[in-house]
Every structure is written in C-alpha cells, then in structure tokens.
C-alpha cells in the first residue's frame, strides 16, 4: 500500500504549484484557478489523513473535505462573478491594472 507520506508529498507539490500560479499569473481568473488548486491539495491531505487516521469510521476528514469542496464551489462562483463584474467596469482581467480603488 502507498504510504501516507507519498500522498502528502503530492499534496504539497500541488499546493506549491497552485501557489506559484496564483503569484505569477496576471489574469484574475488564473489566480482563482491557482487558489482552487491549493484548496484541492488541502482536500487531498484531508482525505489521506482520514484514510490513514485512527478512526476513519468517524468520517471527520471526509466530512471536512466534502464541506471544503462545497465552500470552494461557492468561492469559485462568487470569485468569478467578481471578476466578470470588474471586467465590466475596467474592461480588463489583468490584475496589474486593477490596482486603482475607483472604478
């Protein structure tokens, strides 16, 4: 069986990739995607810990992951709504041009 550490390493790698994406890309949508990737990496951790933890029948990690997925979906919806709304005002999704406080 695959050791828990392997799953944790994959999750860490994915988290780092998501972080790099969120930090380097200039498009707001891609930043959101990077954040989603980080959330997903966290979910993988939760599921892996649930599976290898002492009391899987209590479903703690699994529940955490399911709620996290639900929250992430809500976050994506609102985030993308905001991006579209900003795009309406500023005609851009480039974060470097979105630094003004007035619309």
């Amino acid at each position: 069986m695959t050791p828990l550490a392997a799953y944790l390493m994959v999750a860490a790698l994915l988290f780092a990739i998501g972080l790099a994406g969120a930090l380097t890309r200039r498009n707001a949508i891609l930043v959101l995607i990077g954040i989603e990737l980080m959330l997903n990496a966290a979910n993988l951790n939760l599921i892996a810990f649930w599976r290898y933890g002492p009391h899987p029948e209590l479903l703690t990690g699994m529940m955490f992951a399911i709620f996290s997925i639900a929250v992430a979906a809500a976050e994506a919806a609102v985030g993308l709504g905001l991006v579209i709304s900003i795009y309406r005002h500023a005609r851009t999704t480039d974060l470097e041009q979105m630094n003004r406080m007035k619309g």
Partner: protein
Amino acid sequence: MSPIFYLLAAITVAGGLATVLLKNLVHCALAVTIAFLGLALLFLSLDAQFAGFVQILVYIGAVAILVVFAILLTREAEVPESSPAGRVFSKTWLTGLVIAAAVFAMLGWAVLQSAQALPNETAMPAVSVRDIGNALVGRYVLPLEIVALLLTAATIGAVIVAMHEKEAK
C-alpha cells in the same frame, strides 16, 4: 507504492503544471480539469468513493465550466502575456517561483521528517454512503446547515454581483 499511485500523481501534477505554464487561458482551464480528475482518482484510490465522485461532479461538472464561462465572457481582455523568454526573468515571476519553492521545500521537509511516525497501512474503513448521510444529518448537521446558508448566500451574491446593471449607461 503502487504504479497506479505514480500514474495518478503524475497526471495530477502534470495537470497542475500545465495550468500554471500554458499561455492560452482556455488551455489552462482544461488543464486544471485534468488536475481535478487526477485528484478525484486519488480520492478513489484512498477508498473515498463519495468524495471522489463529488469532486468530479463539483469540480469538473461545475467549477471548470464556470471558469470556462468566465474566460469566454472576458475574452476581449486576453492580454498577451509577456513572452515566455522575458517572463522567466521578470521580477514577479521569479518572486512567485521562489516563494512557491520555499513553501514546497518547507512542506516536503516537514513530511519527510515525520515520515517515520506516519501510519503506512490501515484496514480499509467500512464506510458506506449511508454512514456519510447519517453523519451529515447527525454529527455534522450544524456545518451542513451553515454550508447550505453559505451556498444560498453565494448564489444570491454571485447573481447580484454579475447581474446586468439596469440602464446604468
């Protein structure tokens, strides 16, 4: 470590990398779907059937589609990012890469440090969807209600934020 795990991990990481590195926005959105799919399969390999299918349903079926819609709705704004050659040496890119690498190094170090202490094998938990349902409306009923409220609020919020402003112009 089974070859299947390597395969799934490779798919997931490759999808993630492609998301960050590809230039075309739509390609990025499709690449992130591959990462989501890889993660769902990893969940399945961890015997978390329910979470795996929910992952596919929510991420591939909804979030990826949302992202794609957002990309197409803001298509005029597709600014050509600075050329790849120039990007490698740009300050933002370098800073981001360094921070990400540092975070990964730290996480990896932490994992490897505790690898001995981590459990390597457990019996497969006998968890059915019925148990998950019972837990959701039993032990976790308060979070469930809060999530329900959050989702409703998010739906309304997203609609209002993105709604067509009436006769604004």
